[in-house]
C-alpha cells in the first residue's frame, strides 16, 4: 500500500472528499485488523467509530518520518475500542490470530466489470433488496428497508442471502473471489 498520508494535510484542513479517498484504501485494512474480535464485539460499529475518530484527530497527527501515520493511529484506535468493548462484556481478550485479508483476484477495472455483469443478471426480489442496501449506506436498518419494499424482515434477509449467493457464484465463474480466506 502506498503512503495514505498524501491526503493528511487536506483531511486536517477539513476536506471530507480527501478523507473519502483515504477511507477507500484504509477501511479494508482497519476492518481486517479487527478479525480476531469478530466473535465478541460488533466490528462494524467499532470500525465506524474508529474511522470517525481518525477524522477528528487528523489535525493533531504529526509526521514521525514513517508512512501512514493516520492509518496507524486508526488501527490503534480500533484495537483499543475493541478491547474496551470486550472488557465491558467481561470476556477475555481474543488471542491474536493470523489475519485473513479479502482478496479480489482480478485487477480493479476487471473486478468492477465482473460485479456489474453479475448484478445485472440478478432478477426480482434479490435484485430489489441488494439495490435497497446499496442505495442506503447505513441510514436505515433492514427492517425499515423491508417495510418500504413491502417485505417482512425475514423475506428481506432471505432475498439478500439469495442475492449474495447468486453474486458469489457468478463472480466465481468469472474467476473473482471476494470471500475472505478461512
Amino acid at each position, binding site marked *: 500500500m502506498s503512503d495514505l498520508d498524501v491526503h493528511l494535510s487536506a483531511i486536517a484542513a477539513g476536506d471530507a472528499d480527501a478523507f473519502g479517498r483515504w477511507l477507500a484504501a484504509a477501511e479494508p485494512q482497519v476492518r481486517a485488523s479487527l478479525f480476531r474480535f469478530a466473535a465478541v464485539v460488533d466490528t462494524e460499529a467499532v470500525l465506524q467509530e474508529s474511522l470517525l475518530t481518525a477524522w*477528528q484527530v487528523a489535525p493533531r497527527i504529526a509526521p514521525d518520518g514513517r508512512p501512514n501515520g493516520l492509518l496507524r493511529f486508526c488501527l490503534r484506535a480500533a484495537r483499543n475500542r475493541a478491547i474496551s468493548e470486550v472488557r465491558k462484556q467481561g470476556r477475555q481478550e481474543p488471542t491474536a490470530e493470523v489475519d485473513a485479508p479479502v482478496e479480489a483476484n482480478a485487477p480493479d477495472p476487471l473486478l468492477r466489470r465482473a460485479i456489474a455483469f453479475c448484478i445485472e443478471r440478478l432478477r426480482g426480489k434479490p435484485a430489489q433488496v441488494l439495490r435497497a442496501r446499496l442505495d442506503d449506506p447505513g441510514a436505515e436498518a433492514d427492517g425499515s428497508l423491508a417495510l418500504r419494499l413491502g417485505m417482512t424482515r425475514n423475506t428481506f434477509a432471505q432475498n439478500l442471502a439469495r442475492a449474495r449467493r447468486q453474486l458469489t457464484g457468478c463472480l466465481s465463474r468469472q474467476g473473482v473471489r471476494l470471500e475472505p480466506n478461512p
Partner: protein
Amino acid sequence: MTPEERETLIEEATTAWRPERLDGSLGPHPSFADLDDAGRREAYARTRSLRAMEAALDPDGLSTTAHAVLDRIRSASTRT
C-alpha cells in the same frame, strides 16, 4: 432458534446501519447480540465480502461503511 432465524440475524448484521447510543456513538446491531460466536464470525466474513463488492461498484471506491461515516461527517460538526 431455527436455521432460518439464524440466517436472518446474520444477514441483518451485515448492514452498515448501526443504532446510535445516547452519547451519539454507534452501538452494536441488535441482531449481533442474538448470535452465537460462530454466527458473529460468519456475519463478519459476509460483511467483508459485501464491502469489497460495494467498493468495487462505487465510482469513488467507497463501501456503504465509508459512505455512512462520510454522511455523519458531512451532516454534523464532528471535529472535537
